[in-house]
């Protein structure tokens, strides 16, 4: 399968600390890839490097949108990365708390619309129709994610699971071809996690959006992912299909410590 994201040899130093150490990773079209590892392994740092929040010290991030030509996005600003079709959610929910659910999603449409100051003041036909389309598109996304009950609710008043889903909806509104989910199931109960599992598969199958996710819930990871990358101390220690990872001694060691037999 054609790969759409390729990370080659990525290194990230914070002063003397090497958070990422010559990391390679790739995601193919239509794949769900998981990135796992013990706490502090550098998974979120890795996401931040890809999405432009940090500029990696070394290495390449190559983006190959289906049907478009390849771009190297190292050191791009976050908004430019998003414009190129890479959207993300955050580990600690970062919704726009005092905006309504619909407005949160509408923000996601920002980079796919263009009306400016003059359009806003004079409300010409183009702006009005664009605005209507933004509202409609956003609503459609909420329908897909199943949040229509909350349309006019403030984001901060939503139940926790719904907030997590809203983050996904907002990211989807930017029309990505690859979605980066940072611990989407964190803090969810069993039922919510099952729903999330279905949702992620649905996003992949119906929207043709590939997914790269960080997750600690092993049940979810094993059932969802086509491939798994395992990180520890900034290094990639294993990669492969879920079954391979489950039985990989290096991975078990990283998670459980030295004494496996004890």
């Amino acid at each position, binding site marked *: 399968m054609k790969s759409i994201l390729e990370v080659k040899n990525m290194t990230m130093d914070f002063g003397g600390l090497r958070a990422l150490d010559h990391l390679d990773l790739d995601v193919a079209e239509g794949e769900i890839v998981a990135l796992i590892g013990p706490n502090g392994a550098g998974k979120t740092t890795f996401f931040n490097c890809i999405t432009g929040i940090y500029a990696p010290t070394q290495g390449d991030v190559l983006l190959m949108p289906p049907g478009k030509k390849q771009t190297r996005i190292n050191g791009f*600003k976050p908004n430019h990365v998003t414009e190129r079709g890479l*959207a993300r959610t955050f580990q600690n929910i970062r919704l726009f708390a005092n*905006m309504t659910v619909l407005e949160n999603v509408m923000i996601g449409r920002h980079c796919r619309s263009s*009306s400016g*100051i003059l359009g*806003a003041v004079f409300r010409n036909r183009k702006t009005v129709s664009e605005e209507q389309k933004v509202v409609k598109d956003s609503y459609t996304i909420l329908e897909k994610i199943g949040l229509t009950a909350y349309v006019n609710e403030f984001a901060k008043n939503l139940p926790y699971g719904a907030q997590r889903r809203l983050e996904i909806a907002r990211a989807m509104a930017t029309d990505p071809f690859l979605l980066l989910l940072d611990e989407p199931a964190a803090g969810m109960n069993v039922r919510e996690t099952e729903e999330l599992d279905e949702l992620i598969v649905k996003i992949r199958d119906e929207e043709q959006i590939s997914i790269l996710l960080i997750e600690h819930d092993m049940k979810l990871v094993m059932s969802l992912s086509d491939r798994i990358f395992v990180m520890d101390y900034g290094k990639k220690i294993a990669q492969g299909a879920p079954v391979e990872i489950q039985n990989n001694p290096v991975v078990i060691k990283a998670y459980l410590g030295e004494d496996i037999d004890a």
Partner: protein
Amino acid sequence: MIKFSEIKKSLFISIWFVFLTFPIMVIRVNPIEKVIEWRWHNIMLVGIGSFIISYIWRYLLKRKELGDQKAKSGEEAKISMIREALSNPRVFKMAMFGVGILAVIFPFVFSIYQTNIMITALIYVMLGLGLNIVVGLAGLLDLGYVAFYAVGAYSYALLNFHYGIGFWTALPIGGALAACFGIILGFPVLRLRGDYLAIVTLGFGEIIRIILENWNEFSFGPSGIANIPRPGFFGIELSLNNSITYIYFLMIGLTLLTIFVVKRLQDSRIGRAWIALREDEIACQAMGIDKTKTKLTAFALGATWAGMAGVIFAAKTTFINPASFTVWESIIILCIVVLGGMGSVVGVITGAFILMLLPEYLRAFSEYRMLIFGAILVTMMVFRPGGMISTVRRTYQFKDETAERKR
């Protein structure tokens, strides 16, 4: 409900206050006759006063907390009578009609003095609405906003002095120049947030004022610029009275324009981006919003209104000097925005009127002006941190497939 423990608490507070204010309220040293006056009766007043105030204060605080709990537990938040009434379109129309009539007849009914006060209040409405873009919507705490006001005022005064440029030409130029200054200020502070931004903007405001004060060749220093012409009315010379009436209506028109534009900006794609920037900068960027562009437009558009207000201020007073553009002005404008309700157009207008008109009509208490001002601010921030009138987010209603908007 009066509880013993509450009374005890208030009693302690009043004793503590008596102790604290003892040196200033009771002892008075008379250095001429070399005697000390003991004003024992003041103890009584302080004690009783602080007892009552502390009691009421805690009672209100408790009521507020109860209200918060109710709101949290999912009960409908209490909507104020005024808001409920205004949400009825007929009542709203009537109210607007009334305000409109009052605005039109005002200069003919009241004296020139009153009209002048009204003009000042309207100028502050404009300033407040401009700053509201920067502080209320984009969440960038700007303590140097008065600098743009100064830029507008001086651009009219100087352009008129050197090149004889009239009011109507100066108005857009003043706005544009202020917008440029907004961008100039915006660039270095792009990376800053919160306190750091406040400090830098504070410095910027002072820099502009100090330049105006010291660069004599350019701005005529502290002596200022006099004889700035009032706005022209198709080339006809107006008497002082008529001229003030004219400026009044001009100001009404410009205020309406400001309200119109700010409201539309607020509801637009750009307005949403500003609010998103205020809510969470990192998420906002990750959702594809260009932080640089959004911040700079906020600074520039906010400054534009200050620039135009400055031009009108110069034309109204016909004399300007740097003393009109101190930090204090910035603080007042910020207070208007915060007190009125950040991000709310109606709130800012109310705030501007209250903060501008109250001191004028309470001249009898002018000695206690600052005291009252401070007390109001503290009380407001404790009981209504969102301001007098908080924003109502726009809601949308959906009926099978077609998206319809409702206010």
